[in-house]
């Protein structure tokens, strides 16, 4: 019975309306100087679907604005940062939601990608909504240890774990 209930929730959840992913904010870690920050900045600017990058050198944060109507690949952003020799400590993204029903422990489709929601209240969101990625390469080791038992993974497709 429990499994059927989960299945029903998943089916309903996946029927939710997709949203365009507009921008992202990431905080890099493992860097000590403005030259490190500059190399991340330049690596992010080279990512194909990134339209613009703004950096805050003091806090090692980068705001990415994405090109419209193009597939956004979060893993490619992580590869740009990690590939340069650094890590991501925090990654959030903003998408436009239209009557999107969010439920805890539910798989939901946004912008053609699968997201699994953790530690959220059941609610319906509208307008620009920010979500935080919880997968290993998008959070600090300390944060990862706190959430790793709750993460969902599916070997057959890429599922991003998120929270609000």
């Amino acid at each position, binding site marked *: 019975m429990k499994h059927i209930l989960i299945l029903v929730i998943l089916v309903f959840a996946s029927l939710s309306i997709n949203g365009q992913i507009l921008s992202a904010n990431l905080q890099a870690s493992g860097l*000590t100087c*403005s030259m490190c*920050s*500059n*190399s991340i900045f330049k690596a992010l600017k*080279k990512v194909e679907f990134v339209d613009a990058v703004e950096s805050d*050198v003091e806090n090692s944060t980068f705001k990415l604005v994405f090109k419209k109507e193009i597939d956004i690949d979060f893993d490619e952003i992580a590869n740009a940062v*990690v590939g340069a*020799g650094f890590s991501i*400590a925090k990654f959030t993204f903003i998408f436009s939601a239209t009557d999107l029903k969010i439920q805890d422990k539910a798989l939901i489709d946004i912008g053609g990608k699968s997201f699994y929601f953790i530690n959220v209240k059941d609610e319906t969101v509208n307008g620009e909504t920010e979500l935080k990625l919880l997968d290993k390469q998008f959070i600090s080791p300390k944060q990862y240890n706190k959430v790793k038992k709750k993460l969902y993974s599916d070997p057959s497709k890429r599922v991003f774990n998120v929270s609000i």
Partner: protein
Amino acid sequence: MKKIILIFCIAIAFNSKAQELYVFTEPASNIPAAVLSARLMSSFFKEVDGSGTNIHFMPELRYGISGRLMVQAQGYISTRNGSLYTEGAGIYSQYKFLSIDDIKQHFRMAVFGRGSFNRADIHQEEIEIVGHNTGYEFGFISTQLLHKVAISSTLSYERALDNGSAYEFPVSQSNSAQNYTLSFGKLILPRKYTSYDQTNFNIMCEFLGQRLTDNGRSYLDIAPAIQFIIKSRARIDIGYRHQLYSTMQRSAPNGFLIRYEYNFYNVK
């Protein structure tokens, strides 16, 4: 001079942020991937026998192959025998095998290896394959960055070979050594970053030691340095190296070093 060095090194214990771009050693953090770094280093070390100043020029290219692997090539030019003379060249590679990153805090470990050729005469017991001896070196680097200070340590094994066919390594000397270093670094300015155009001012204090395998002779140097980073692209290092003690014969242990570095990003 010793008092100035002491005050300088104590100053490192204060002030705000850490910095690990050491002048006399490498941190375990590699240069970022796809960054090509061109360097020119000049050193001016006073000969202990009073014959003047031993000047070296060392042009260098470094490249980040990936976030974990970097390579470097370096030329050794000296004025030791009067005019400019190309004594040799060396290659270096460093692989970062551990990286635990957090915000403004990280721990990294790397292994490195260096091979050098040098055709100059062998004139001291100290083994230095960067600019003096033909030979090789390999070792470990650990770098810990805490909020206030970056601490790095290197342990390595260095082996000297004959300097070409003309200068055999003296059989009376130890041809291998263990090197150990301990470095501290601080960011002094800016107090708050607002753009990539700000000039950074960093200070470092490093301890550089060597022990010869065969006879146990050793030295320990202290090496304070200042550093400017300009427009997040270029770097100027000015360092001074001073012998604290030595039981081995060294031709020019005390002197200055100046280095200019310029970085090219996204070089693929």
